[in-house]
Every structure is written in C-alpha cells, then in structure tokens.
C-alpha cells in the first residue's frame, strides 16, 4: 500500500489519548496494555482513570499522556479521542482539539458535527465476530479493536503490545492470543481504511530506562512490608482498598517463613474503620509494627481512637488515600482536602506528623520511614496521598532498599529493665526530649507492667486528675511534636535564576506544578518551587518563605488548608502567602497552575 501523507507536521511522542467507555466494559485491560506498550517503547507516559462510583453502566474515561519531555500531569487537551460510549459521545467529540483524531465504534449512531477533526468509525462488532472470539468474551475483548486501530495510526510496535499483554495476563497464553488476534485484525482493517496518515506518531526512545510502572497503593503496601510490617487491619473504602489488597497479595511472596510456611505478619479485615484502627492500636501498643489505609470517611470514624493513640502514646501508621469530600462526596475523584482533618485529628489538643509522598517511589520510601517515625515518637503518624497517586499507574523510579536499619524506638525488655540505673515510669521523660520509654505486654519483668488509659495519668501511668500533672504531660507531648520538625523529610527545593516568587505544593500535583514552572519561565516569570514532603514544617520551609516576595500555595481543596496551616505557624509571613486552590475532583493540570499564577502576577 502506498504511503499516505499527512497534511500536518508530525507530532512525535507528545499527545494525549482519551478513551471514553462504559464502566465495567473491560476497557482497563485495553488501556493499561496501550500504556505499557508506550512505556516499553521507551516513551514517558502517564495514565489517568476518570471513573464513576459505579460497577457497571456509567461513563468512564482513561487518558494516556505521551510526553517525550516527561510532562506527565493530566493534560487539558486531547489530541486523539476514542468514543466507545453513546452516552458521552457528543461531549467526547466536543473535547477534541482541532485537527485531532476521532475514532468511534460504528454501532453508535450519533451526529458528527465537526469538520475540523479526522473521523474514523470502527466496525468493532464485525471485527470481533470475525476474530472468532467466543460469544461470551466478545464484550470484554471488543476494546482491543481501538488498541489495534491506534497501533496502526500511531505506529506502536506490535511486539511491545504483545509484551504488555503478556504482563497483564501473567504469561497466560490463551487470553494473550485471543486479544492479539483482535488487535491484528484491527490493524489490518485500519491499514486498509484509514485514508490519512496520522500527524501523531509514537517513536521508540530511551525515556523510560530505569523506571517502573506502579500505583501508590502498591508502593505504600510494599514500603510498609519493607518497613517490617507485622499487623494490619483494614476496612474496604475507595480509593484506599488497593493498599491492604497489595499487602495481602505480596504476603506469600515476601513474608512466608520458608520453614513453617507461616506468614510473618497478620492481616485482618475488620468490621469497620473503628475496629480497624482499634486493632492496629492494640497491636502497636503490644509492640507490633502496624499500618492501616483508609480515606476521608474512614478517617472520621477513626478520629476518637487516634486521639487515644496520641494521648496514650501508641505507634501506628495510617495512610489516608484522599478522595473528594465533604461527606461521601465524590468517592472516585481525587482531592487534597483532608489536610486539616488529619493534622488535628481527635478532640482536645492533638497534632500529628504527616508525610506527603510526591511520587510513587516516595510512597515506598515514606512507607517504611513512617513506621520508623511512629515507633521513635510513640505516636500516630500519617501518610497522605490521593486517589490519583493511589490508584493510577505512575512511571516512577524503582523502589530503593531502605538505607537504614529498622528503628524500634525506646522499648525496654527484661534485660533492659534489669540494667536501668533510674526508676522507669511509662511517661517519664528521662532523656529530656519528650519521648518516654515503653514496655509491651509479654515482658515478664515484675516492673514492666503498667496500665494504659485515655484518662489523665502521671509519669508512672497512674490515674491522675492533678492540674499540674495534666498540664505538664500535655506540654511534654507538644515538645515531642516540636522535635518531629527535625525528624520528618525535608522539602525538595527547585530554584531558578532570578526567581523572586515561590510556589509550594505537595503530593500528586508535583508533575503539574513542575511543568507549569517551565511554562512560567518561558512566560518570563521565574518561580522557585518547594515541594513539601511533610508536616510539621521545618526551617527549610520557613527560610523559603522568608526569602521570597510572594509564595503561592497550590493545593486541591477549597479552603487552602495547607496555606492556613503554614500561615498559622509563621504569622509574620502570612500576608506573603497566596492560596491557589483547584477543587473539581479532577487532577491538577500545568495549564491551570500557569494561568492561576500568571493571572495574579500580571495584575
């Protein structure tokens, strides 16, 4: 067949593909296969699943951004649209950029009202039928038709698709063959029927060498396991469920005792979040390394118990994979709206350290670091990510083996108590750092036992309502918290020449903010970027704010919660802080950040 010429300049490895499907139609296999094929071609990619709170029937979208420049935030434009869902057809067509390519399943009989895009109807049902796929599987494999069409259109390497399918099906030949058959059929059909070469092309490059593809939930699970996890209890909730599921999945592989065939850690699916957190607090109290994962509604339920763990000084780690609140909110949409809730969770004066991983590999790192910190502080420690980082596959650096041994904090066993030259009390601050020594059940030393309570207690864990004792104890807890500033990860600062203004962001928005900083520089606005990695803030954050004229705090919530917290902790600088909030439930984009900052700077 003769080479067909494009009317436009080719655009290589720099476009977004959006697939609009019906939830539950099996499009995840097709989308993840496409994404992995690009990855295996060495092209940096990201995949964002925009899905409904529903099992079957509502519209869902998957966007793959292909970016040679490694700009992997969600893009606001779509260059290629695949419409498989009649319900979203008109809207999907509307979203496409001029000159874009619109593929759709030809059984959808909707009006095509745009002349500025290239339109190809795909005979999906016919191709699936011709492939000989069993009737019962046809609906599931139908999505491979657009995989084949895109393969032809963009020049995706077929063998990379095959490898991606092998990965997806764990090497099971039958489903791989069935899917490949449809893909090949579709490629043939496309070669015969697409009458224009696509301006968008995928070409092999070396942009993914040394990277892996993983979700934050899986990374958090693995980070916890490599942090020496011994007990987890959990309750299902979107979008956090993937983490305990991954913990359970990797258990036989990573922590099965070769001799006894028993597992080295326990997993209990609890009856609710109240019980899940209660169980890990019991386990943490008794000397086990514990973690649980939840989201906003679960955090609300855990609040009473977290207050107890704070006051009784029990190490636990809670991952909050944030979804959009308030209330049930948008359970399948992303948000950074639980910062205030988490930081101050519990009645009375409570404050908790929070880790903010900004990449999937950092989810792994902070997974084990959070467990160390919890035991060092004898306190609840939180890790906040969001649906986007938790559930989507991210291209990320490989997980690094922990570079420090497991830290168990100040824990005393029988021999330690025997050799002590001072009289131990559970809440006695012997070292002057606010952190007491603890013993745990099973310690058989006659002096080891003590009674733990959420009510007032003195340094020896006796019940006390004495005013001075109460005040002194709360002051010590605060001292411990202040110490945390030097123990949590420092921020990462990216400076640019001549920058007088700064931007602070954290978590899943890192790709969008980094990309925006490049665009802003091109616009003549140099911005220094501080990626916050934990609360409470430390000296580096303070210095960054002091040394800039204005500092934008970018976050995905309505009220600028992080901005409020920083402002409260450095009131003299508060007027410098400008809150920029994006609160739609969709992932932040570079274009939004760029426009928001330009809008303020150009005033």
């Amino acid at each position, binding site marked *: 067949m003769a080479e067909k010429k494009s009317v436009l300049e080719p655009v290589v490895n720099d476009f977004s593909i959006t697939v609009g499907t019906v939830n539950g139609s099996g499009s995840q296999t097709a989308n993840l296969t496409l994404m992995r094929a690009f990855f*295996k071609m060495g092209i940096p990619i990201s995949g964002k699943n925009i899905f409904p709170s529903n099992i079957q029937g509502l519209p869902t979208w998957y966007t793959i951004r292909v970016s040679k420049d490694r700009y992997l935030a969600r893009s606001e434009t779509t260059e290629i649209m695949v419409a498989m869902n009649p319900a979203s057809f008109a809207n999907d067509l509307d979203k496409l950029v001029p000159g874009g390519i619109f593929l759709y399943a030809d059984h959808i009989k909707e009006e095509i009202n745009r002349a500025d895009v290239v339109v190809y109807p795909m005979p999906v049902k016919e191709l699936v039928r011709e492939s000989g796929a069993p009737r019962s599987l046809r609906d599931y494999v139908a999505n491979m038709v657009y995989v084949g069409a895109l393969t032809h259109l963009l020049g995706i390497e077929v063998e990379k698709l095959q490898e991606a399918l092998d990965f997806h099906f764990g090497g099971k030949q039958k489903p791989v063959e069935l899917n490949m058959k449809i893909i090949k059929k579709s490629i043939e059909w496309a070669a015969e029927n697409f009458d224009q070469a696509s301006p968008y092309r995928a070409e092999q490059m070396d942009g993914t060498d040394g*990277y*892996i*593809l*993983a979700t934050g939930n899986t990374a958090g699970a*693995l980070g916890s396991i*490599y*942090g020496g*996890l*011994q*007990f987890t*209890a959990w309750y299902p909730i979107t979008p956090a469920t993937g983490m305990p599921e991954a913990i359970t999945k990797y258990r036989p592989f*990573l922590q099965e005792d070769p001799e*006894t*065939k*028993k*597992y*080295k850690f*326990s*997993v*209990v699916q*609890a*009856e*609710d979040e*109240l*019980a*899940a*957190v*209660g*169980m890990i*607090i*019991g*386990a*943490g*109290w*008794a*000397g*086990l390394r*514990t973690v649980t994962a939840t989201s906003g509604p679960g955090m609300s339920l855990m609040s*009473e*118990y977290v207050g107890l763990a704070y006051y009784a000084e029990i190490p636990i780690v809670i991952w909050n994979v944030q979804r959009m609140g308030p209330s049930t909110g948008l359970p399948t949409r992303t948000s950074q709206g639980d910062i205030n809730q988490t930081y101050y969770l519990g009645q009375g004066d409570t404050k908790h350290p929070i880790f903010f991983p900004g990449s999937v590999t950092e989810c792994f790192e902070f997974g084990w670091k959070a467990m160390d910190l919890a035991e060092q502080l004898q306190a609840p420690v939180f890790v906040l990510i969001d649906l986007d980082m938790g559930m989507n596959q991210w291209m990320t650096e*490989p*997980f690094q*083996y922990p570079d420090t*041994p*497991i*830290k168990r904090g100040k824990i005393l066993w029988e021999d330690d108590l025997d050799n002590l030259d001072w009289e131990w009390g559970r809440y006695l601050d012997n070292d002057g750092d606010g952190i007491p020594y603890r*013993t*745990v*059940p*099973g*310690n*058989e*030393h006659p002096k*080891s*036992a003590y*009674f*733990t*309570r959420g*009510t007032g207690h003195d340094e020896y864990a006796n019940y006390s309502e004495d005013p001075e004792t109460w005040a002194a104890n709360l002051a010590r807890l605060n001292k411990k918290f202040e110490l945390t500033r030097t123990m949590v990860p420092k921020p990462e600062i990216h400076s640019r020449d001549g920058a007088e203004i700064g931007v602070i962001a954290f978590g899943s928005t890192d790709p969008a903010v980094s990309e925006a900083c490049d665009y802003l520089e091109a616009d003549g606005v140099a911005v220094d970027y501080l990626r916050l990695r934990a609360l409470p803030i430390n000296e580096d954050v303070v210095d960054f704010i002091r040394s800039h004229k204005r500092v934008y705090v970018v976050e995905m919530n309505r009220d600028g919660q992080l901005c409020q917290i920083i402002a409260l902790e450095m009131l003299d600088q508060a007027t410098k802080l400008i809150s920029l909030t994006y609160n739609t439930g969709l992932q932040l984009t570079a274009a939004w950040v760029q426009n928001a900052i330009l809008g303020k700077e150009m005033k």
Partner: protein
Amino acid sequence: MGAKKETLNGIGLSKEDYAGAPSTLCRGCGHNAIVNQMIAACYEENIPPEKVVKFSGIGCSSKAPTYFLSRSFGFNGLHGRMPSLATGALFADTSLIGIGVSGDGDSASIGMGQFKHVMRRNLPLVYIIANNGVYGLTKGQISATAEEGLALKNQSQNMYMPIDIVWEALVGRASFVARGFSGDPKQLKDLFKAALHHRGMAVIDVISPCVTFNNKDDTLHSYAWGKLHEVALHELSFVPAAEIVTVDYEKGQTAKVDLHDGTHIILKKLEHGYEPGDRGAALQLLEEANRKQELVTGLIYIDPDQKTIFDIDYLPPKRLNRVPAEELRPSRESLNKVNALMV
C-alpha cells in the same frame, strides 16, 4: 488484724500478688464480686500475672481491671471498642491470656458491632460483661439490657425489649458462653477458671447489680430478684490436667468437657439435665427461662475445638513482638525481584 500467714499457690505467689488498686466502685457493687472472684480464680489456677493482659472499655464495669492483677499489663480503652483493641494486642504474643471487662452499655449498646464481630472471629479472650441494666457512671440511665417497663429514678419508663447478651453471643458463634450472678460468687469463680483455660472466645454475662441505681427487689438486675429466681444449670467444677484420673464422676449425671490445654470442666447436672454442647438447645433454654422468669446461670454453651482467629491467620508459633528487628524486613534481593515485576 494480726499477722496473717500468707498461703502461696503452686507458683509461689500469694493472693496479694494478684491484687489491684483499691476499688473505687460503690460499696456492695456487683462488680466487686467479679474483681474478687477473678483474683481468686487466677491465684488458684497458678496463672502468672505477667501472662495476663487486661482490657476494658468505658463505664463502671470497665474500671474493674484496675482493681485486680496490677502486675499485669492493662488497657482501659474507648467506649464500646475493647474487642478491637484486644484483637490487635493479643496478636503480639499469643501465649498471653486476655481478660476483657465490659458492661451492658459498653457491649450491648455502643459496642454491639465489635461485640458481635469478635464473637465470630473466636478471639481467645475471657470477655466478661458486668451487666446491671443501667448506666452507672452517668448516673442512672436505662441500658439496652434493661427489662421492658423498668422505671428508674428521674428516667422515663423503658419502652423497649431488652437485649440478651448470652443470646447475642450464641448467635454470634462464640465458642464459650456462660451466665453468672454476682450474688453467686462460688459459681462465678468456677466459670472464670474454665474460661481462663478455654482456647477461644469465652463470654461470661454476669448479672451484677448496681446498688445505687438499679437494685429494687422486683427488678431483673437486682440481688433480690437474682437470688429468688436463679436456677443454676450445673454444679460446675474445674479439674486441672493432672487430677482428672482421680475424679469420680457418674456418667449420665455428669458431663465432662476436655479443654485444649488438657484441663477439664466437670458439670454435675441439676434439675434442667442440660448439656452445653448444642447451640440450638442453648437458645431454647434461654427462651424457656425467659418464659418461666428464671435466671439460668452456668455454662450454657461450649465448643472447645472451634478454630480461633490465630489458627485462621497462619500465625507463626513465635511471639510476634519478640521477633528481632533484623528479621522483620524482607531481603534486598526480594526487592530487586519486585522492581523487575513492574516494568
């Protein structure tokens, strides 16, 4: 008092070694009987206090663990949430004996969810519910186990049907379910002993009168009503492993239950002729007792062989909280494999 000679038990401890802080409960409170009989049971069974962990929720009942076994670790947690706390903690060292003390408000109201779920998991725990039909610490409100029609001072009459804790425990599939009465301390002690040796969830609903707020002679949680209406199911005794050969028991009139640790419960049948191995029969017994206005006490159901949560969760035989830090982390090589799985 003159110098009393201390009698030591089989592990060289005096009863004093099992004591706790002085009780701050009301004089005559049923819960004090629970405290005293628990001290006696642990002492007589030669249980090292260091091998016991105590748990409680919130309420008068939940103060009780402070008043026994001060040489044991204890945790007075949140209202209604004792079962989850005990579940997590006991995973840390499965050689420990857990004793949980809760109340009717704590377990039958705010904590009903956790109560039911810990039953079905068969957590090895002695779970005592000090049941007096009233909220004492908040000064006399009607609880969920109070009988329909109960009228308390400054409270409107109870309009609802009561929750029967023993019934709920049975339906929840606890493997040991008993009812005791603070007015019958001897039986209470024997039930505690059996429960301490049972491997699995041992629920003991103790009718434990509140002398301050709910002890009128005609109310169901009073001493007077209990004494008048108590029907003990058996004469219960508890036999350590070594002594079973010397026990002379009459087949037919007596039932023997073999526990997991080699000890035995001997049940001498009384008028009901009841055997505690059938859940359906147990529920029927409760229905009849209810109709006849009897307070049946004793061991109502037991299955000594039911799988516990520890059997189910593939727990290693080691005490988990003593595993050295260097054994907790998987190898560097394993992480290389994990990374290789993700490209």
